[in-house]
């Protein structure tokens, strides 16, 4: 099952049981899943809206509907389109529960495709996970595999009462992966060790997980055994699991496809510096996007993308 199909399957599973689930512009399935998407849209036609091109309008409507007891799932499509709705997502959805002293819940899901997709250029390659992570009140989910995507989406739809930003990397959507049979959940705030190792911890999010696993394979040939750990959700964050891995290896490299400055890697590095400093035998290393808008032409785009080779080089330097 592809990543996109896994998302669709999770929503289908829950929506069948829960009539409060409504969908705006559902397009989750990626290229591979277009037939399944068509069937899904037919099955849930009565609960699906295709709003006009009006992000601040329809995101606000989804938020208001969540406050009134529905569980809307909004497919933003490209993550940068959500910038048009920032006033509603950041300044209404995220603060309502706190402002009301715990009286008004906002169980809305904003799904968005993020990251360097290949030719997206300066406006369709955005990675806003660190912006949203810097907004108290928003849950941040960013799985790396179809199995995690399905289990996390189910948990969000069945258990969460908070607004959630659900990130799927554009280049992961058509990735195939094993998905367990039957109904299962992946809890929020539980990291997953994707490959065990002893020499260096690589904390990787979303698309950086397959890149880190490829890097770990290369590093193993040099006798460097990297542990790849995927937080899977940034909010809530499984700090104990990350710190335990760093304690075991004494070295940490953090890789995420947002920008270096105040990015996800920077935020995780700060936590490790604060709470895991005595475990460290080397400085914390980040592999993310340099602080430039993502350019269009192939060599320019490749230069700023945090590919496996950059992870390999950084890990080697750490383990010298």
């Amino acid at each position: 099952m592809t990543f996109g199909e896994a998302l669709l399957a999770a929503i289908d599973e829950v929506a069948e049981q829960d009539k409060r689930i409504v969908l705006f512009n559902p397009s989750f399935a990626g290229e591979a899943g277009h037939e399944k998407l068509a069937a899904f849209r037919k099955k849930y036609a009565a609960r699906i809206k295709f709003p006009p091109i009006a992000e601040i309008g329809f995101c606000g409507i989804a938020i208001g509907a969540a406050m009134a007891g529905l569980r809307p799932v909004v497919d933003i499509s490209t993550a940068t389109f959500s910038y048009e709705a920032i006033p509603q997502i950041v300044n209404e959805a995220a603060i309502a529960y706190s402002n009301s002293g715990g009286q008004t819940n906002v169980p809305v899901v904003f799904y968005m495709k993020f990251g360097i997709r290949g030719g997206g250029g300066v406006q369709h390659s955005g990675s806003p996970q660190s912006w949203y992570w810097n907004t108290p009140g928003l849950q941040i989910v960013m799985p790396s595999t179809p199995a995690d995507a399905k289990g996390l989406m189910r948990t969000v739809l069945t258990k969460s009462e908070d607004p959630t930003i659900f990130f799927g990397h554009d280049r992961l959507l058509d990735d195939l992966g094993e998905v367990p049979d039957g109904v299962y959940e992946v809890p929020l705030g539980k990291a997953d060790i994707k490959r065990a190792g002893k020499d260096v911890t690589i904390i990787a999010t979303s698309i950086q997980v397959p890149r880190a696993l490829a890097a770990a394979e290369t590093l193993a040939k040099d006798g460097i055994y990297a542990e790849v750990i995927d937080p899977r959700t940034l909010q809530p964050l499984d700090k104990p699991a990350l710190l335990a891995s760093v304690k075991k290896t004494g070295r940490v490299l953090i890789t995420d496809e947002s920008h270096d400055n105040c990015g996800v890697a920077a935020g995780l590095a700060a936590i490790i510096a604060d709470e895991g400093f005595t475990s460290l035998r080397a400085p914390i290393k980040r592999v993310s996007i340099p602080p430039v808008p993502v350019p269009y032409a192939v060599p320019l785009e490749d230069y700023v993308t945090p590919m496996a080779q950059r992870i390999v080089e950084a890990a080697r330097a750490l383990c010298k």
Partner: protein
Amino acid sequence: MLPDISRDKQLAILRRMLMIRRAEEHCIRFNDEHTGLIRGHFHVYIGQEATGVSVCDWLNADDYVFTTHRNHGHVIAKGGDPKKVLAEIIGRATGYCQGRAGTFHVAAPEVGVIHTSAIVGGCLALAGGTAYAAQVKESKAITVVFFGDGAMEEGVFYEALNIAKLWQLPMIFWMENNYRRSGRGAGHAATELTNVPKALNVETTVIDGIDVGTVHKTAKDIVSRVRKGEGPLFVEARTHLWPGNAFNMPKLVGGVTDIAWAWDASKAPEKVRDWHKDHDPILNYLRELAGAGISRGELEKLDAEVSQETDAAARFALESPLPDAKAALNYAFAGKGI
């Protein structure tokens, strides 16, 4: 004109309007008499009481009302408790939101005000959401979103209105034009603000927002039509900026309203005399009630009762404890993880 309802109901409307006026006067006095009690600027609903109260008179407990930075009056109009409103305004643990919201964001979910945004236009789309939810749930609940003339300068107004019309949402866009924006200079290129909804085929009504009878009758018609599925509809209720509102921090420029001015406006201080004589919805309504045979003594007694109640509410707020400092970390998330 007087609303076409029983005498008791007419007086109930007067009582709610006075409750808002007296509570807002306390709010201003909090700021004038106690430095730092209200932390920052604030806005009051004085002069617009006829609209909020008359509209909410036709709403049910499960109907939704959204408001603005000028929210105190709408919360009380929908049935909110002035004690909890005043306590929230000064950040007390007993306030509607336990002191987390303050004057700008008073939300009272128990009476249908589930969230309040102080961002101009912030609730327009959210109101579309509660209306959409009612449509999905096939409930009869409707949503009224109150906003000012300034909100029509925001892009979200256009998007929310457009979607509301396309989806035929059961909601009322109720604009209270207090000329706060247009009175200061051009904030909108439209000759008439109603031209904007008209361009999207949303039916509009323009009324005198200080006349209780007019607002009440219009609200009855608009609410019942929206409940029958004829929404969205748009109303512009025109009010007149209260002289004390001409500042970022409202001031009781003529002192608290003395209802005796209804019978003899010359007694009112000069700075506010014309406004109370011609534009004050409460004094206007009092004159009409008196004209219909309700004695001045009875009206004064009612005002005294309301004042006693709001005085007690102000004391309750002032005597209430501040929240415990550690409560700052509560309620970031409904779920457990931080």
